[in-house]
């Protein structure tokens, strides 16, 4: 068997990528006019191009353009691109996590961060643990255990890019409330992805919980190494890279190279590659020597090439109409709102915020956006969740992102921090 892509395979692969990129950009731009997040446009294109619409109406066109079942070589190539995309997305997500920001914001940010993590986590965990049948989970011990951990994590994560955009549009980014939301979202992302890496690793071991101690140990050891020693080495190397090597090629190649090295390392020790990429992103993004322009170039490259491919690919894998289960969607939505708003709200109040401000912070942090979708996709690929739960998570991510700003405005209408 030849391992090279054939002439026609290559044409199909290029056509598929071009279709995904061009259509997702057009739809995202149209959606922008309606103030819809870009990720929504990208998902919509996936749904249209995937089994939900194109696959149902024109199955020949679908299987020609995206031969995920019929052409093994193209399927592998696409899978490789999608895997690379998610690694890159986690890398840039990590680049925006600023641990010092959480420390700088003090008690309010820390208690909000904890509250918005712990309460949604335990809400999700408890519901999944005591009523797994709602989500179609067969109670076989480890299955239930992993799914419960996953649902808790899925409900506690936030989406920094969406939140940052909402705060900027509301002109409250640099206010106290804005900074608390950003700091708490960073905290949620950091802890959430660490826990999720452990869950993925457990799932990869066939749910063997005896190795959980080792996995957690590896995660902590790798994180500590990168955030202490790795950060120091990066801080030493970056000024040299940015001045002595070609600009911006040098920093781009070295940063992305380090991301892939870390991803390969974590994958090789049994933790998912995303953790390596995420931690590498934190270590590089935290460096004071990383020029703003370099940061922007990396973001532009990943957000405009890899992100559309990844989000469109979601629609290619799942039939959203067939797997839309109203009861699961509603349960996930209710859990998401209650857990996040109550958790962040109580955390905020404990940190000294007024009730309405604390609720506004809760609704702000409730936006799950792209991060939730990435998390859901990885869990679906790993077999932790089925299609109906995956669809529910995608719907929840979109609904929470769309409702975040209007709900925040309601609770901030009397706040002096809301200028408009």
């Amino acid at each position, binding site marked *: 068997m030849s391992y090279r892509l054939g002439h026609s395979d290559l044409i199909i692969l290029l056509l598929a990528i071009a279709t995904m990129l061009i259509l997702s950009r057009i739809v*995202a731009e149209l959606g*922008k006019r309606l103030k819809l*997040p*870009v990720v929504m446009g990208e998902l919509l294109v996936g749904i249209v191009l995937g089994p939900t619409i194109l696959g149902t109406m024109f199955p020949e066109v679908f299987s020609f353009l995206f031969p995920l079942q019929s052409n093994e070589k193209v399927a592998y190539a696409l899978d490789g691109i999608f895997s690379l995309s998610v690694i890159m997305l986690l890398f*840039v*997500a990590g*680049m*925006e996590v*600023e*641990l*010092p*920001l959480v*420390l*700088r914001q*003090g*008690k309010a940010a820390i208690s909000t961060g904890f509250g918005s993590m712990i309460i949604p986590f335990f809400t999700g965990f408890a519901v999944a643990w005591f009523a797994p049948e709602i989500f179609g989970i067969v109670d076989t011990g480890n299955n239930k255990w992993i799914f419960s951990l996953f649902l808790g994590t899925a409900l506690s994560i936030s989406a*920094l*890019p969406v*939140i*940052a*955009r909402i705060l*900027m549009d509301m002109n409250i*980014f*640099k206010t106290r409330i804005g900074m608390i939301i*950003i700091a708490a979202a*960073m905290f949620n992302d950091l802890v959430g992805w660490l826990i999720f890496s452990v869950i993925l690793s457990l799932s990869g071991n066939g749910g063997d919980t005896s190795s959980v101690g080792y996995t957690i140990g590896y995660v902590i050891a790798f994180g500590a190494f990168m955030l*202490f020693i790795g950060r120091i080495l990066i801080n030493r190397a970056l000024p040299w890279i940015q001045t002595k090597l070609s600009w911006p090629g040098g920093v781009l190649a070295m940063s992305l190279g380090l991301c892939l090295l870390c991803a390969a390392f974590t994958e090789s020790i049994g933790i998912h590659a995303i953790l390596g990429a995420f931690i590498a992103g934190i270590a590089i993004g*935290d460096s*004071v020597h990383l020029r*703003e322009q370099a*940061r*922007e170039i990396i*973001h*532009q490259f*990943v*957000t*405009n090439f890899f*992100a559309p491919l990844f989000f469109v690919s979601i629609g290619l894998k799942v039939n959203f109409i067939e797997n839309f289960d109203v009861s699961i969607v509603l349960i996930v939505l209710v859990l998401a709102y209650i857990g996040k708003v109550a958790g962040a709200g109580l955390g905020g109040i404990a940190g*000294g915020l007024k009730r309405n401000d604390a609720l506004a912070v809760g609704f702000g942090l409730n936006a799950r956006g792209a991060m939730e979708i990435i998390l859901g996709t990885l869990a679906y690929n790993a077999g932790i969740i089925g299609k109906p739960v995956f669809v529910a998570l995608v719907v929840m991510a979109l609904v929470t992102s769309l409702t975040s700003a209007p709900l925040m405005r309601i609770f901030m209408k009397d706040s002096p921090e809301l200028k408009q």
Partner: protein
Amino acid sequence: MDYTKLKNRPSWPFETIGVAIAFSPRLESILCEARILSERFNANLVLMHIGDRTRNKEHKLSELLAKAGIKESAVRVIWSEGEPVQTLLHLCKLNIVDLLVMGAMKKENVLQYYLGTVARKISRKAKCSVLLLTEPNKEGSRFRKMVVNIAESPKTSHTLNTAIYFARHNKSREIVAASEMHQPGLAMTMAEDSTAGEASRIRKEIKEGAHSMVNELLEGCKEECNIEIVEKQITGKPGYAIRAFAAQKKADLLVINSPDVKYGIIDRIFTHGMEYILEDLPCNLLIVHSRVNPAE
């Protein structure tokens, strides 16, 4: 102890200047600096030593005071024992010290930095303004070029007024009011769905926001100012950006707000804000404690 006199006490004028005495080789220079500053500000001098009171030390101090041109009758010398940082902080409160003058190494070795030396620890915790002199000299430091960090904080107006007051009494020539522009997540947000026009509009708005903040602060200044104040916007992480700017500008004095949160070892590991400055002092440093609660 009655701290009511300290509450809401403005950060300027400097009526009482405290000096921490450690009998280091630089003590004579620090005493000279303190004498010159007390003359410039017409302030009382309080010298504080934490440690044993021995005849040797008393004798040495008398000698050094004479060399520095300080009359023993004109200063109050306090000898106290205990943990240096807490005792010094306590004495500063007790004596209503407005400005504490200390010598500080420009850069400390890794171990010293993480464990914290007295000067750095005091800088993080003091309830009065602190002046760290990196190269104290017998002729007195010159503060010709000053950089003031304009942060978004209710403390900043006090800091700016104090800086102007300081500059006026030290015949400074230039004050640069530098604001750090840093928005976490901005690059990611703009990469996603901003056109070139939107991106430049957002950047312009951020710049204009910083500009109007500095203008408002300058207009609200209570201190008379006949010194040129130049406004500057710098990009980068807070603390690091101002440190790099002060070093690049070859400033004689960097003026910053006192920290809003209690700094500990974790803040040194995940360096941020003032820790970037303390890690490697770009020049002399004035930390203005405005006795204002930032949450108010």
